[in-house]
């Protein structure tokens, strides 16, 4: 049987020889190492647009913070409980990881893409820059000081936090560079651009409109910078709703409007419109009500659930539904576009610019009317209803009561319905309208910022501690740097 020894030895040799390519086994044949840069840009746009529209209580509770919406059974988030569901942490993941890092990588790939013309490359990089500026400004508006220049670098897993005001200044200068980089004669992202299909002129307007937003946010703390920026940007910003930066949600998941997914597709009944907004709109006889809401069952009235407490779903108005199957948008429409920045906001900024004495064209009243009209038109309100509304004494800019901040604050807040984050930001900045304290609220007052993610306390401890100290404590009640009045 010695003849079997030989085959065994041969087998052994075969085994030894097949061991050469060990490293080749370590591949992942199902996921690529290189992808086109625009696929990352598109993904960042989807992530950003979806995030801002999202009503998921784990991610985006700003429709509650701004008191547009109220909760039915579990009134936890509307009482400003943020940690149970790790909301700050989840939103960092969304914005840093899914938006900013994809933008960052997209920029890196596009910079190295030799098949692109210089002009197109510059346009693409400028578009990426605009979205980065927007996203960072949202993060600052939520938290204050945040990781910024050390962020997005996996080699530095403990980025330090930077002063919010300095970040704002830097964002402004980056935005200025991007604006000047755009070249309308060259191509941009083309069909990979979900917001504008690669239209450079629209990107220019979007960038200028964003500049207006950053500037007006700074107005109370850095009037000169605000004034310069607004005077530069005003002539180049949005001119109609056609210019709006929106994400055109699809008819079915997973890229349908997340509001539709939460209110319709899930079949859940977690939200009703809040009494805060419905009461204000009832006072003003607002013609947007049938666009936003249904009548409360068995009544002829719009009736909102009490903010910050438990509400019986069936007792209140609900969000509007697409019953007529017409072209108008209702809240519960899968294809309702998600707004990133719209023309109405630009016009409201210009009202304020006039009031602050900046050199922009048009009167405050004119811009105020334009703003309201633009918002109403985007919801399909009739021209007649719009003019009736504008002529009401309580609405008319000349006759309405209150300071300009109060007048602008209330109307801007109404027009930002569904844009919870911006609605809450404007309320904090303009201190109008009056929001309701939730019954049995344990906090001293309505939050002025979010607390940092719990995992920052664990994973980035020393920087977290330094940042907390710098802003006077990681507290819901601390005002942001721009919120001085």
């Amino acid at each position, binding site marked *: 049987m010695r003849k079997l020894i030989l085959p065994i030895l041969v087998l052994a040799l075969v085994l030894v020889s097949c061991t050469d390519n060990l490293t080749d*086994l370590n591949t992942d044949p199902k996921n690529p190492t290189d992808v086109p840069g625009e696929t990352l840009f598109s993904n960042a746009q989807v992530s950003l647009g979806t995030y801002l529209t999202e009503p998921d209580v784990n991610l985006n509770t700003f429709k509650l913070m701004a008191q547009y919406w109220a909760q039915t059974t579990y009134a*936890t988030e509307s009482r400003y409980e943020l940690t149970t569901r790790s909301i700050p942490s989840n939103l960092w993941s969304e914005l840093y990881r899914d938006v900013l890092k*994809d933008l960052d990588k997209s920029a890196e790939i596009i910079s190295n893409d030799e098949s692109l013309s210089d002009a197109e490359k510059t346009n693409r990089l400028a578009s990426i820059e605009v979205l980065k500026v927007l996203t960072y400004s949202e993060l600052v508006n939520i938290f204050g000081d945040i990781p910024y220049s050390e962020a997005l*670098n996996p080699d530095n897993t403990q980025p330090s936090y930077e002063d919010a005001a300095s970040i704002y200044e830097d964002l402004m200068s980056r935005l200025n560079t991007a604006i000047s980089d755009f070249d309308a004669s060259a191509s941009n992202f083309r069909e990979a651009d979900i917001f504008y299909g690669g239209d450079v002129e629209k990107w220019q307007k979007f960038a200028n409109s964003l500049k207006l937003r950053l500037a007006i946010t700074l107005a109370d703390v850095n009037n000169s910078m605000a004034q310069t920026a607004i005077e530069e940007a005003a002539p180049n910003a949005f001119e109609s709703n056609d210019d709006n930066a929106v994400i055109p949600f699809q008819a079915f998941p997973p890229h349908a409007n997340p509001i539709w997914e939460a209110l319709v597709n899930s079949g859940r009944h977690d939200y009703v419109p809040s009494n805060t907004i419905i009461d204000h709109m009832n006072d003003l006889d607002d013609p947007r009500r049938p666009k936003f809401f249904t009548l409360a069952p068995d009544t002829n009235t719009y009736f909102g659930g009490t903010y910050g407490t438990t509400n019986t779903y069936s007792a209140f108005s609900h969000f509007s539904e697409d019953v007529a199957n017409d072209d108008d948008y209702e809240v519960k429409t899968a294809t309702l576009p998600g707004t990133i920045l719209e023309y109405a906001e630009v016009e409201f900024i210009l009202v304020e610019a006039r009031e602050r004495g900046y050199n922009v064209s048009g009167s405050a009243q004119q811009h105020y009317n334009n703003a309201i009209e633009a918002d109403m038109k985007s919801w399909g309100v009739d021209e007649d209803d719009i003019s009736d509304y504008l002529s009401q004494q309580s609405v008319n800019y000349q006759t309405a009561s209150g300071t300009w901040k109060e007048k602008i604050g209330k109307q801007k807040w109404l027009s930002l319905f569904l844009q919870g984050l911006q609605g809450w930001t404007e309320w904090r900045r303009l201190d109008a309208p009056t929001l309701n304290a939730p019954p049995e609220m344990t906090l001293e007052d309505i939050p002025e910022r979010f607390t940092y993610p719990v995992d*920052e306390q664990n994973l980035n401890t020393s920087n977290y501690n330094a940042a907390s100290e710098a802003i006077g404590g990681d507290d819901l009640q601390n005002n942001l740097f721009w919120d001085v009045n």
Partner: protein
Amino acid sequence: MLRKLLSSSLGLVLCFMLFASGAIAQTGSISGTITDSNTSDVLPGANVFIQDIEKGTAASGDGTYIIEDVPYGTYELQFSFVGYQSQTKQVVVDSDEITVNAQLSPSEAALEEVFVTAYGIEQSQNELPYSAQKVDGDIVAQNRNDNFLTSLSGRVAGLKVSKSNGMGGSTNMVMRGYKSISGNNQVLFVVDGVPYANREFNTEDVEEGDAGYDYGNTAVDINPDNIASINVLKGPAAAALYGSRASNGAIVIETKKAEIGQQSVDVTFNSSVTASRIDQSTFPEYQMKYGQGYGPYYSGGSEPYFYQFDANGDGSDDLVAPYTADASFGPRFDADKMVYTWESFANSGPNSGQPQPWTAPENTPVDFFETGMTTQNSISVDGGFTGGYYALGYNQNNTSGIMPNSELDKHKLNFSAGYDISEDLHVSASVNYARTEGLGRPQTGYSTLLSQFRQWWATSVDIESQRDAYFRNGGSNTPWNVTSDLSGPFYWSNIYWSRHENYSTDQRDRYFGYTEARYDVNDWLSFTGRVAIDNYSQIIEERTNKPSATTDLPEYTQRKQNFTEFNYDLLANYDTQLSETIGVSGVVGMNIRRNHTQAITGTTNGGLVVPDQFSLDNSSNGILFPEETDEQLGVNGYFASLNLNYDDLVNIELTGRRDKSSSLPEDENVYYYPSASAGFIFSEIVSADWLTFGKIRASVASVGNTAPPASLTDRFNRNPSNFGRTPLYTLPNTKNNPDLKPERTKSWEVGLQMSLFQDRFSYDINYYDQNTLDQILATEVSRASGYQTKFVNAGNVENRGIELTVTGRPVVTQDFAWTVTANWNKNINEVKALAPGVDNYQLAAPQGDVTISAALGEPYGAIRGSDFIYQDGEPVVNSSGFYKSTASSNHIIGNMNPDWTGGISNRINYKNWSLNFLVDVRWGGDIFSLDQYYGQGTGLYPVTAAINDNGNNVRDPVSEGGGVVLDGVKEDGSPNDIHAPANTYAGAFGWINNPSANFVYDGSYVKLREVGLTYSIPQDLINRIGLLRSASVSVIGRNLLILHKNLPYADPEQGIAVGNVQGYQGAAHPTTRDVTLNLKLRF
């Protein structure tokens, strides 16, 4: 079904018996009787064998044997029997009839017991220079439920076994504590020298406490009736030759094999039936004073706890139970009130359209559970022939679970055989097949069925009415929790709908086997070549039907996975005496391992078009891109061992292994595992009557480990759907690292083993210290880095502890013997280092505002959450009487590691009766209970409707003497006397006004784990029947009683699923008491 199977099995048995009786009928010239040395009982079936002439036989029913035609000469006569120590006797055949009797000692008593260590190397316990423990195959086979692994619980010092989630649920097996921060901590399984994959299919969600199904793990595919012995190798020194996977300890299983040349056939038939009922102490006890609702929120006036509207159309308002609520802070039961409930609004049924008296229901959720039944039938045949042996078996197991619509069906086949082709060349092979089919596996985690019973339930719901409502209309979803417009299920579906319409099925086919050739060069050197294959394919289908509760959109998911592991081994074994006193033995060899896993998961999108049609192409919208995995790992290893034995006094063992792995960078992919062990048998030089045996031993080892596949290079992930026509790619959440190095485990241990007074008392004590360094871990990083996790080499987890096994034989007489064995382990775990600058590694952030973490300086598995605020050790309440809570959820409020674990097993033999029982103890270790966190908040448990110090119900308004005074102090430090309101979900109980720390419980338990009573049919009766060699009937009870626990209404042993996240309970399954009746026949 059972009857059919029994009759067919018996037919099979009869066939074998004809064959067997033909083989036994011989006469011979060596004869004798084989008996048990303790009891002097005869041992039918014990083997006798003469190696030189390859002749042998087995003892007949009266324990006698005859070997005929033995040529004159001198022979070694070997006696062996399962469960007994082998014995060799020299015999000189020089006359026609030689009588040789043998007394065999049970192997439990044996220090001579043979251990199977790495690569099939056999060593007696005398020789072992490191810690190992052996469990007899019979013990394992005796446990006739669907998971034989659980029978190891409490039997091995240092091994922690826990099974979760009921039928087919996964089994967590961790040796000497958690070592790897983010990797696998489960022990390695080795069957007949070949690694046996123990994988699980639970999603990451399930492992972190979210909803899903528990599909168990694959080590249970082994046929328990084919297990001869289980050798547990505890430390890296013992396991170093197996490579990195054995750093968590190894469970080395030897299957049953007959001796070559054994001229007999051993046929064993086992048939059992097990009944399982829930242990009510592990299920909620509900308050039965108040019904459905969240509080006085539903209407004005005098009955705010009810809805008030015109339910019957008579023009006046009626009282309506808050059917939208999934809580029990509702109206107080009052038989005088006629109330409309979910039953009134159901389409049909006795109460449709009718109000009912507002009373507590007759049937509560405990009545939901059925009696689970398991039948297990097996037949195994093993025998030998000249120059060879064979073994074959079939095991069939059918379980119907305690929940409706749940079933588990298993078929296991095994065949192995060996043959001496020539004097020098021996070939053998083994093939095993296992088929597992599951239906309605247990759902685990948040928002599953048990979440309803434990967290979100209305105590006013009658479970029988739910059942009737489902079946009445041919299976309709008639929920107890209805939307406010009464259109259908709100947060929860009809319970029976959930079980019958939303369920999973799964099917696994597994092949495991090897072929092996051994060439004996001479009497001290042999070469062995072996190719082994382990392969399974698994398909899982998960269904959610329409119209289900609002949270469950109709959905169908299909998951397929194919796994293969190839092992090619080439070994040279040597064993020789260099001189009278010095013996050397060991192995030199190589191992090539290749793993390949391929998986694909597809899920429907946006619902199903045709109800009840579960296929991907029935998706309402275009399905998402399927998720594909294709992963390979290759390791090439070379190893050698040298065991030096000096005069049976000193044993020294040196081992080394070099691995080269595919998943590490090319210049860092080689790592080494040295180990050195020594044992000194001091009883050889100490002569004392009381000292039977004594040994001290010490060992030191270092093992390496490789990275998970494909963790070096960055990849992009496709978003599962285009946006319109625009394709989307994103960066993954984990940053890979091209500079990874192998991770290292360094360990040492010392042990003392003594046996006193002729084995009447023996013990084995061991101290170990193990550090797992430079761990390859996907550490969490600040999200601001653009990633969630990043692969790094960092961290050090230390485990050190004491293992103690004590065996006593207080009584040993002719008819009565009692053996007691106690196992005890105290493991001290500490996370000594994490990634630089990081003091916490989060393992999971499940519901309940808690996280489970590896926290620096703490034992692995710290539970973090919001804590009480203390003043002089007393929790402080605020002005409303609610506990004050820390603002952050970052406080360490518990730890999952027990202080110690242990078990006491007893075996008592009296004549034909044998009784064994096992008490299993876990002491300490914390559990966060999400069930209490939410369930107290929704008013399910008696504490939420107790009588307070005023003699009033705590739910009465504080103004009327109600409310509860919580233990603690007021902010001024004086004892709390504030009555906190407890009349709504936002009161003194539950999650809203309490820190998470209020729901952390001590996880200790003392369980009567197993009681077995066996009656062996007396041998003279067996002899009269003739056919049988032995027969026994057993009654075995498992988990009969929890003697002690502190966690209310749940079993502390129930966890999430197999994995690193423990110390957390949410939607825990009740534990079952299992009683088995088993018939065992040997022919």
